């Protein structure tokens, strides 16, 4: 990379450093606890994957630019400036070796939000041209096509036709004034269309109106994952424009982790203003329906099953109790993993890792953390609420010859809806 791009990267990292980041670096005592929280370190034993080490270039820039002592040291030649080799060496740690799961942030005794710092340092790496090519490609497709996987509107329309054909239910496009605007991840459109059917059936039973915007149906935000705020902003803006144009009251983020925190919490900060609609994760919507008596189910699964908490939902989104309440409606065999809820271990594929083919081997290693949790429990079904977790888990289970089906919670609930005449359910 040219030195101009590296300079840009350094400048971007400098801009990302705010008071919270400075307080984190000022407080770090090098206790190493964050390593024990990180599946990439725990499963590889390689100290380079210690979370705080992943932001070492940012720490050096902070020290040299924002502390008197650091400036003196730099002037005296006692510290080395961040250079192209550092970007080269840290790229793998910043992208392949971190799923932005946030477990390290929760265990740091001085309170450092390390995963947020890694999210920030990616801004500099992306600008410097040091982001994995697969993520660059996904981000380009998200901007140009509207989906990181290149899914276009006709593909969605085809799924809607299938839905109508199979169940008689509709997924209305561009219906102004609907109660809910539903977002989908490309993964759900292509790999898990059951989700769309589940939504259609649940909404019908609840008697709520809903719509999908033909202009902004993609929920995921590659800009957030790769760390390019301009692109993240544009992707959020598309959803905001669509929601405001259709005049919906609530936007539903699908079974996806980062899509939720991106639109729910990062979004308003990216576009620089609050929304005039609500954003809820699908599980929050379902939990509301449950509380309002709008979600009526019958029968319970008896198999032993557990719930894999998507990191972004529990550690950054606060959706913890809802899935447990919902599972209680349809399962008699629910058991918790040893580390669950806010301390759950990542599947290994978050934060753009699953989209980055280069990281496959490392991701498979990291999956062993999840494997050991599952081995302990001996479950027959694994339930989750994130399409990206789901595909990563399915891959990991397959690689390890573990015969455990992975199911999305929304679709599991839909399978247990009380059949009412004309609700379009399978008969």
């Amino acid at each position, binding site marked *: 990379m040219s030195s101009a791009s590296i300079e840009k990267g350094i400048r971007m990292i400098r801009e990302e450093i705010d008071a919270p980041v400075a307080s984190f670096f000022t407080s770090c005592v090098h206790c190493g606890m964050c390593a024990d929280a990180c599946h990439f370190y725990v499963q590889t034993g390689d100290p380079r994957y210690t979370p705080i080490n992943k932001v070492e270039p940012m720490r050096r820039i902070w020290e040299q630019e924002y502390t008197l002592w650091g400036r003196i040291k730099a002037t005296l030649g006692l510290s080395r400036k961040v250079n192209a080799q550092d970007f080269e060496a840290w790229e793998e740690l910043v992208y392949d070796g971190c799923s932005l799961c946030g477990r390290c942030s*929760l265990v740091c005794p001085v309170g450092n*939000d390390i995963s947020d710092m890694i999210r920030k340092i990616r801004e500099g790496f992306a600008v410097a041209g040091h982001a994995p090519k697969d993520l660059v490609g996904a981000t380009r497709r998200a901007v140009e096509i509207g989906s990181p996987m290149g899914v276009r509107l006709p593909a969605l329309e085809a799924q809607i036709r299938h839905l109508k054909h199979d169940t008689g239910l509709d997924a209305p496009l561009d219906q102004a004034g609907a109660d809910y605007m539903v977002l989908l991840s490309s993964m759900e459109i292509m790999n898990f269309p059951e989700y769309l059917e589940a939504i259609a059936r649940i909404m019908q039973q609840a008697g709520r109106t809903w719509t999908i915007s033909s202009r902004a149906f993609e929920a995921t935000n590659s800009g957030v994952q790769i760390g390019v705020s301009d692109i993240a902003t544009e992707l959020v803006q598309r959803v905001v424009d669509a929601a405001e144009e259709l005049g919906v009251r609530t936007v539903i983020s699908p079974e996806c982790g980062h899509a939720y925190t991106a639109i729910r919490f990062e979004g308003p900060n990216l576009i620089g203003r609050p929304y005039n609609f609500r954003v809820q994760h699908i599980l929050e919507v379902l939990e509301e329906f449950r509380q309002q008596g709008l979600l009526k189910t019958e029968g319970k699964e008896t198999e032993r099953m557990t719930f894999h908490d998507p990191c972004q939902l529990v550690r950054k989104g606060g959706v913890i109790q809802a899935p447990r309440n919902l599972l209680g409606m349809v399962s008699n065999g629910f058991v918790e993993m040893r580390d669950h809820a806010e301390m759950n271990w990542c599947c290994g594929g978050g934060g753009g890792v699953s989209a980055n083919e280069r990281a496959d081997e490392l991701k498979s290693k990291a999956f062993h953390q999840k494997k050991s949790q599952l081995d302990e429990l001996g479950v027959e079904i694994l339930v989750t609420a994130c399409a990206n977790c789901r595909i990563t888990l399915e891959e990991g289970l397959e690689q390890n010859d573990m015969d455990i089906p992975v199911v999305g919670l929304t679709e599991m609930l839909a399978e247990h809806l009380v059949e009412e005449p004309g609700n379009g359910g399978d008969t």
Partner: protein
Amino acid sequence: MTADAILFFARGTGFDWALAIFVFGMLLRLFEVLSLGSKPDLSEGRGSGVQGGLKTIVTRTLPRPAIFAREPVRIINGYVFHIGFLAVLFLYEPHIELFEAKMGLSWPGLPTGIINALGVLTIFSLLLALTLRLSSPVLKFLSTGSDYLAWLVTLLPVLTGYLAYNHMLLPYTAMLAVHILSVELFMVVAPFTKLTHMFSFMLARWYQGYRAGHRGVES
């Protein structure tokens, strides 16, 4: 220079300078953090950021069981060191008299026998901390010269205090002078090493806790 003269310097000019560097240095470090500012969060909150921040300042003092199970020795040793160090610093009668003379504040102390025992415990916990740092691949990898310097300047006041109190190694006056000088070294070094965490941890916990509280997540 006689031991008396060194002690005189250590108690007078030396102490004043060290204290000035400590106070000014720490204020500078905190200013360096706060002056960078942070943007207000425009997203709709699910809970209170202020409550989350205040709560996390307190609750982060305890380890999460999942992480304690992985590193019990390191974590318990951390408590032993911090409690021991703070006890010998703040609950030893002659230290309290010094604080009273300098700040006009006084509080009850612990019997000297207990302080003496805590001093030994603190020294051992620091030695264990160093052993762990040198033997753990992660800690060894993370450690810089500054970490070892911080360790040394923390050990010296406890060690020399213990030696002075027990009249070991050097005549009392000389050891007391060395003890006070070592405290001054600690005060001078602290603002420029990770020892800044003694104050800044509250900011770090506040910032993470504030965001977590706003989002309605655990922290």
